[in-house]
């Protein structure tokens, strides 16, 4: 139930963000969502794409440093309190979140949350126990089409 996320190392300089984006565009890879973490000196761009392997290959060939990690995507009601409900379950199970970001995708009134957990398998179990829809890759990409 985990999905693949690409992390790309970027120097914090003008123009650095557009290069990998152009590379993906040329290869016909659509970005479902991305999040940026940055310091004064460098940043990490995290991406969810439909074809992570292809994206990794084209980015690596273009000279980017890329890492693929597994993250957990969760479907949530697109309403006030939707995120808070999920976080409550995670906190209660004493699972740490390294980082997270959110986006809306093809489903009406639903949003997707992407989590990087210290223990993703435990998190998936706990969330599914509580009836939360943990989205697999296929489901996520198809809904976004």
């Amino acid at each position, binding site marked *: 139930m985990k999905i693949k996320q690409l992390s790309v*190392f*970027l*120097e914090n300089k003008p123009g*650095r963000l557009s290069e990998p984006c152009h590379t993906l565009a040329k290869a016909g890879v659509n970005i479902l969502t991305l999040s940026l973490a940055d*310091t004064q000196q*460098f940043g990490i761009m995290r991406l969810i794409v439909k074809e992570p392997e292809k994206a990794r290959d084209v980015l690596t060939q273009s*000279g980017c*440093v*890329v*890492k693929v990690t597994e993250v957990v995507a969760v479907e949530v009601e697109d309403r006030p309190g939707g995120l808070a409900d999920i976080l409550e379950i995670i906190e209660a199970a004493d699972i740490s979140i390294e980082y997270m970001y959110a986006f809306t995708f093809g489903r009406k009134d639903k949003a997707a949350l992407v989590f990087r957990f210290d223990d993703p398998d435990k998190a998936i179990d706990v969330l599914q126990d509580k009836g939360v829809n943990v989205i697999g890759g296929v489901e996520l990409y198809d809904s976004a089409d």
Partner: protein
Amino acid sequence: MGEFVTENRIWDPAETMPHDELRALQLERLVQTLARVAEVPFYKEAFTKAGVSPDDIKTLDDLRRLPFTTKADLRDHYPLGFLAVGRDRVARFHGSSGTTGKPTFVAYTKEDLSTWADLCARFLVSGGLRPEHTVHIAFGYGLFTGGFGLHYGVERVGAAVVPAAAGNTRRQIMLLKDLAADVLVCTPSYALTIAETVGAMGIDPKELSLKFAHFGAEPWTEDMRAQIEADMGLLAFNNYGLSEVIGPGVSGECAARNGMHIQEDHFIVECVDPETLEPAQPGCQGELVFTSLTKQAMPIIRYRTRDIAQLDPSPCACGRTGIRMDRVVGRTDDMLIIRGVNVFPSQIEEALLRVEGTAPHYLIEIGRPETLDEVKVHVEVRSKDLSDKMSHMQALRDRIGQEIHSITGIHADVYLVEPQTLERFVGKAKRVLDHRTEKNDA
């Protein structure tokens, strides 16, 4: 694995000459050398000025009464003021690789070229070369002594040479693969570039047939050796030389790999304190000084190499009697003085290799924005080192800074940069950008 990394084979019995015979031979050859330089104007003048005559040299210890020769002396007598034979006897010219300033020329007679080939053959064989091998030489062929020196050494052993010369890394890799070379000869930094390019081309290094490598022409570290050996699946040997003395072949590692045996039947080595010029304490680092014993065209007396290393006179398991020198840690003129601390670029490299086993592509930038020196070290990130977690990336940067501090004692600001953004070098690497000297020049 025993005490040898590969079979211990000796090319020339002279390499194992007993010490008393070796010293007697050195003295005999030193006296002959002094006779040969007696008419060279530079030496004539220098000896007179020092109040010493070649006839005063009766023992090896007397060598210390003779004056030193420096790079500046060679430049002052540009182009051929040190020639000790007629032009008709000169068979070849080479030049210093010009790492520092204007080149200086050196000359060889036919006999010198033969001696040189033998000296290279010795260290090549001690580092695994056999007549059935093919050797890929990725050194520049030209005035630089590396290419031709190794080339003729390989031929002397009876092995095949691929004179690939420098540049075009992808083509080099194609040659390595298609001609199935067993041995690689280049600078250690270029070997890293080759290893990296092999990876980028999607070739498994095991598809190459390389078993041995001989690296020289620039300082490198033990960690760098471990990395190249792991990446390329070969055994790497260190050799040392400089054009002013003969070129490669002054010393080289044996299969015991605990220092480079200086070919003492052809050179006398001294290790001196670069400040006082007095002999360095035994077991301490100092500047190496060489006197040639057999060169005809351009003998050199007490040449100050500016290379900093340490000598080890203890016996070696391989049976060679030549004293060993350890790695050159730097050059007196590479040495950076940062906030009063002596720092060699090789130390920064050592720190980087300690952290993640990362490729040491780095640039040291030194400035003095106010009154104090500030050091920035730019380091390329590799996929292996990348984490999606910011905290890990910051920890990586901090660890590099801590290693630099623990090795050099200085604080450096570490900048992680994207791969392939720092300049690659085919020959000798230039990894220091010193803005302080730029200011002085302006």
